[in-house]
């Protein structure tokens, strides 16, 4: 249990966990200590001098961001003395800041504006200085307006902590500014365009590139949801106005840098309205796809499925929600009565590894072991995992990388074990047992002839010393990794799609043919759900494609059903860490598109069966699987070796090609060439 400290802030009793700073402690009782450079989730640096407070028994004011709570402390946050200092600070900052709040995008959200208002500063009492810095408009994601910058350094520290390290202070004194190496455009500076700096900026120095005139903060309707574009399933807050999404931020409340989202999650939403978006069902007549009604399309689908029965197959992506998955399984199993229903998870994982994964929290782990995984913000493979690990390492956690290939994240690892992953895992298990940790007999005896290197010895020592070791494994190496977790720690198999774990828990794993088999086995009817990674029509008599966009595959289908995107209906997923996450409807479905689940329900109704809408209770029941790890042989599961880059790009093709992300793909391709 964390120790609790009692103190007094402005006459109020506060109970705060030991180690908390005064700004956060004051917030527990609703007292706001003004601050600009401090940002929740980042270390305090005490640069802005706004958070000065007075503590009884101390001569001069101290900074709240870097002073920790102590038993019996008596703090005053609003004395005349500190208020005067704060007013002076704001007065100074205003002398180098444009006073154009009436047209500024950030108005209403701007911390500087708020403090100027509080301290009754309409103007600066100093001579105003205009620096005349150019605006950086070289990319469609992040606009840099140094003229607004108040040099708080939040973006600099955030960019550094998450490992991108693009932004830094340049120059000195009044002429210092936040910039990139050699003042190059962001694209040439290794920027991944995650936009974390946008969320961190307290003023208008780093807005979204297209944000101007897209509405002020108070005009937006805000909805909490989850991004379903990759295996991280990050929390997001979707801001919309007039029925259209205007911007997306991280799922954390404003004023915190605790969470991360990547460029896909933040800027990919343009695809909702892209040219290829499907608005009505399509039916092939005289060799061409033509618009038709739902009634017509669904009756054809129902008829085909009924006739095919066992000869029908369903393939789906794992980026659909739990409720969709449950309904799809009922449609396939109970109504169509086929055993063939499988998803893209089978390309990189087996259901058991995902189901048996444990639940864990990255932010408290002190040792992370990465087995056979290559999370990378730069390649946008599990970018949030990469960012979280780097942040943890910055805060003192250690990282062990076990990977036969060279990967970027090993630059922050304390130990890199190269060569075959399986033999390294075996070595670690043996070393752990050798150091006195208990293990299953069978496991122990299987390790007789295993060699232990010095590096393996070191890794084992770190695992023993750690209080919360956490192993992230590629699904193909899960059982081998789980053998370590059986001795010590927790283990999680990380899939590449947002709801991979949920899909496995909901039981949408085949009883008959696998995903790959269904593509080649000449099924009577093949029903593809979501943006499956296929360009060529599989071998089937009748192809149904249900997706939000007209993909290459959809163009070769016999029936195309328009599904809603994850912004357009509510549901849940289970993320890679085992958390049940809720998606809420941010906007109305475009055109006549419907949620996957609703389409399945409508089909079964025509087929004469009733499927009820899946409820949260049903999802919860399905996801409450008691995980029990059992020792298994140290082997790598074969056939699960799809390239994650290709998979993620393929299942997001419509997102990338229907949004400004295409600029990034082409620009990165051009610089690489």
């Amino acid at each position, binding site marked *: 249990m964390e120790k609790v400290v009692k103190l007094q802030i402005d006459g109020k009793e506060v109970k705060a966990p030991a180690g908390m700073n005064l700004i956060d402690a004051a917030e527990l009782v609703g007292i706001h200590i003004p601050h600009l450079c401090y940002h929740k989730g980042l270390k305090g640096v005490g640069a802005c001098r706004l958070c000065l407070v007075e503590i009884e028994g101390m001569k001069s004011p101290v900074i709240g961001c870097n002073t920790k709570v102590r038993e019996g402390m008596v703090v005053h946050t609003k004395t005349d003395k500190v208020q005067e200092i704060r007013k002076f600070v704001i007065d100074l900052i205003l002398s180098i800041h444009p006073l154009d709040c009436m047209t500024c995008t950030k108005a209403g959200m701007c911390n500087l504006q708020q403090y100027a208002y509080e301290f009754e500063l309409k103007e600066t009492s100093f001579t105003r200085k205009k620096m005349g810095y150019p605006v950086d408009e070289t990319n469609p994601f992040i606009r840099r307006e140094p003229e607004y910058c108040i040099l708080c350094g939040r973006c600099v520290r955030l960019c550094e902590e998450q490992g991108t390290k693009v*932004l*830094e202070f*340049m*120059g*000195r004194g009044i002429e*210092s500014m936040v910039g990139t*190496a*050699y003042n190059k455009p962001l694209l040439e500076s290794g920027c991944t365009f995650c936009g974390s700096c946008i969320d961190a900026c307290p003023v208008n120095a780093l807005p979204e590139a297209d944000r101007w005139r897209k509405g002020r903060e108070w005009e937006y309707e805000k909805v909490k949801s989850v991004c379903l574009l990759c295996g991280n399933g990050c929390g997001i807050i979707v801001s919309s106005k007039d029925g259209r999404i205007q911007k997306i931020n991280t799922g954390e409340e404003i004023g915190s840098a605790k969470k991360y989202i990547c460029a896909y999650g933040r800027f990919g939403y343009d695809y909702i309205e892209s040219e290829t978006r499907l608005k009505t069902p399509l039916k092939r007549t005289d060799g061409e796809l033509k618009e038709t009604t739902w009634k017509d399309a669904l009756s054809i689908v129902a008829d085909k499925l009924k006739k095919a029965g066992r000869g029908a197959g369903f393939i789906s992506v794992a980026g659909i929600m739990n409720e969709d998955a449950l309904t799809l399984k009922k449609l396939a199993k109970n109504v169509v009565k086929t055993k063939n229903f499988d998803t893209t998870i089978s390309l990189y994982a087996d259901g058991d590894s995902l189901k048996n994964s444990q639940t864990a929290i990255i932010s408290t782990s002190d040792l992370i072991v990465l087995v056979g995984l290559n999370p990378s913000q730069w390649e946008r493979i599990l970018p949030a995992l990469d960012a979280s690990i780097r942040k943890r390492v910055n805060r003192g956690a250690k990282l062990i990388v076990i990977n036969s290939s060279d990967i970027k994240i090993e630059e922050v690892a304390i130990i890199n074990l190269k060569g075959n992953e399986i033999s390294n895992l075996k070595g670690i298990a043996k070393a752990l047992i050798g150091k006195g940790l208990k293990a299953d007999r069978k496991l122990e005896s299987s390790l007789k002839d295993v060699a232990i290197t010095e590096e393996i010895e070191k890794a084992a020592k770190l695992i023993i010393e750690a209080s919360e070791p956490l192993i992230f494994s590629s699904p193909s190496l899960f059982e081998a990794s789980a053998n370590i977790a059986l001795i010590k720690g927790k283990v999680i198999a990380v899939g590449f799609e947002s709801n991979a774990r949920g899909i496995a828990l909901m039981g949408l794993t085949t009883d008959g043919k696998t995903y790959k088999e269904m593509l080649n086995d000449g099924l009577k009817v093949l029903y593809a759900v979501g943006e499956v990674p296929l360009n060529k029509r599989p071998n089937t008599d009748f192809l149904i494609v249900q997706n939000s966009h007209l993909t290459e595959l959809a163009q070769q289908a016999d029936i195309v059903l328009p599904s809603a995107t994850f912004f357009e209906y509510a549901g849940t997923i289970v993320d890679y860490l085992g958390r049940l996450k809720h998606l809420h409807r941010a906007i109305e479905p475009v055109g006549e598109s419907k949620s996957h689940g609703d389409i399945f329900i409508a089909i079964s109704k025509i087929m004469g069966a009733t499927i009820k809408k899946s409820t949260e209770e049903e999802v919860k029941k399905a996801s409450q699987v008691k995980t029990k790890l059992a020792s298994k042989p140290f082997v790598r599961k074969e056939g699960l070796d799809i390239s994650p880059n290709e998979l993620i790009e393929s299942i997001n093709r419509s997102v990338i090609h229907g949004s400004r992300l295409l600029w990034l793909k082409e620009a990165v391709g051009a610089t690489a060439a």
Partner: protein
Amino acid sequence: MEDELLEQILASFKGERNELVPILQEVQDNLGYLPEKAMLDIAKFVGVPESHVYSVASFYAQFRLLPLGRKRVAVCRGTACHIRGAPQILSTVVKTIDLKEGETSDDLEYTLETVACIGCCALAPCIRINREVSGDMTPEKAKGLFLVKEGGGEDVE
């Protein structure tokens, strides 16, 4: 040539973070300025991001991020020169060689600087080009110091 020199310089350091400034100084002493490529190599060598190297290099006035021109033109703005017309001299030079204070021409012919005092106030106003000081300047005379540039540049049309 530059690469070899840089390699030699780096070889005499351990590659620790606290060596960044001494390395930058040594590189500048040898190359005359801090080329981009050198900063990238230095960043890798001491294990810090490129943005950090640039941040440090841009913080200290001693570091130059651009090469100097072959002719370093220093216009004196000391008190004596100032009252005898240094502002007019400076604006003449600015117009003549088409450079602002602190800039270097693309062909690396000139770098224009201003100094607080050259130390020959009796000759005010004065200009120093590399080591040679010219005193009793008038705008006309100042122009004369840069005839070649003017003939080749502005008079072509």
